[in-house]
């Protein structure tokens, strides 16, 4: 790749701009993605934290489901918290639909409500669990990159990545997770 990879961040709702300094520090170009045309020319896509129910509805209302499906077929995609919920195979508490891109099941707010939100250390880097989902892989093809207790919190499945936590709220750039995601793109 001669020019810098362009990383789209789905910007219908949620935590978008905190990714900018991470993406730039990892050698990419940040692009908020809101409409079909914004998907043209991106090399990777982040589905950010926010409210998964709101995002599902806005994806439908703005008819972006096909763009997302194409992105899932063609490029590395990373789901964070709500974004991970969108990418899972099945979702509980409550049951809701998802795109089934990574063979994991997710329990929404599995780590509790806001009063249970916490910082957590992954390989010396502080990340934030905020009303976070619990992830459980359904098969051995899912590579587990980090755990909290017994539960995986950072997983990789081919070029699809999911974290139940937020590294983007940490202001040391780039996060190891953004670096890892960027390495998937250069390999792609």
């Amino acid at each position, binding site marked *: 790749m001669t020019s810098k990879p362009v990383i789209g961040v789905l910007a219908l709702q949620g935590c978008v701009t905190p990714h900018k300094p991470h993406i730039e520090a990892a050698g990419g170009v940040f692009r908020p993605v809101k409409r079909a045309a914004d998907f043209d020319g991106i090399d990777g896509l982040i589905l950010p934290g926010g409210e998964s129910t709101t995002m599902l509805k806005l994806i439908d209302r703005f008819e972006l489901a096909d763009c997302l499906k194409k992105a899932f077929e063609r490029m590395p995609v990373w789901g964070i918290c709500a974004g991970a919920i969108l990418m899972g195979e099945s979702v509980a508490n409550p049951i809701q639909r998802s795109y089934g891109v990574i063979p994991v099941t997710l329990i929404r707010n599995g780590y509790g409500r806001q009063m249970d939100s916490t910082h957590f250390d992954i390989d010396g880097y502080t990340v934030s669990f905020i009303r976070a989902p619990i992830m459980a892989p359904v098969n051995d093809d899912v590579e587990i990159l980090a755990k909290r207790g017994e539960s995986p919190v950072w997983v990789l499945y081919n070029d699809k990545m999911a974290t139940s936590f937020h590294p983007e709220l940490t*202001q040391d750039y780039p996060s190891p997770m953004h670096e890892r995601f960027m390495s998937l793109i250069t390999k792609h």
Partner: protein
Amino acid sequence: MSKSRVINLKTGLAEMLKGGVIMDVIDVEQAKIAEDAGAVAVMALERVPSDIRKQGGVARMSPPELIQEIMEAVSIPVMAKCRIGHFTEAQVLETIGVDYIDESEVLTPADDEFHINKHDFKVPFVCGATNLAEALRRVGEGAALLRTKGEAGTGNIVEAVRHLRQINKEIRDVVNADEAELMTIAKNMGAPYELLQVVREEGRLPVPNFAAGGVATPADAALCMQLGAETVFVGSGIFKSDDPAGYAKAIVKAVAHFDDPAVVLEASKGLKGEPMRGIEMSALEEDQKLAKRGW
């Protein structure tokens, strides 16, 4: 723990709520309508502001059972209001486990001099503000999120616009000020000096700022977003309209593409019936203006 610099968890949740709509609801049925429409959170209330305005009397924290029922009914974050300075109501709300507390001028203040020391709490607080100094005093007390006060329960956006513009203007003034002027600005404004330094360096408030108070239409919500609000609270505007589900969806749609008039137009069409009736500001007596509460 490592030494990473990280945004605190209270403001972290506010980051997740950006680009969304937070809706006032008074029961489970309304909470579900709000969630179905795509609200990012709900504010559990006994009465929406326009009814508080009409019915008068002392407005207090909602009954715990009501808040708990709503928390069980929806999967999105649930906020609840306590009276200004009523730290015991806040303790009760924290014990219930709500996701955010609004120390709100919509309820009757419990302390006419002091706000709650919000640093004492693990649960995050949002507070209203009409200008930069008020906003920074609330942050100094520990608010993790700000909102304009607007004039709640009026369906009239003029006060929210005034507050957004006021804060934007004062931020510009601080950014353009000579550093030597900052202490006197802090003294004259009544704002904490250290937080003014942050505003001057970053060109923005130290925590996110949402809009509230008088939002009644998709265009109102988009207006607030274009003026720099990062999410919109809608109180009476949804459930006092003729078509709550329609208005709720339309406002969510308009906020997602607030800078695209074609989408705001589309969101504004096909609504069944009228938005909430609304009150002209000159029709309010000075003592009926809720934005004057708070110090």
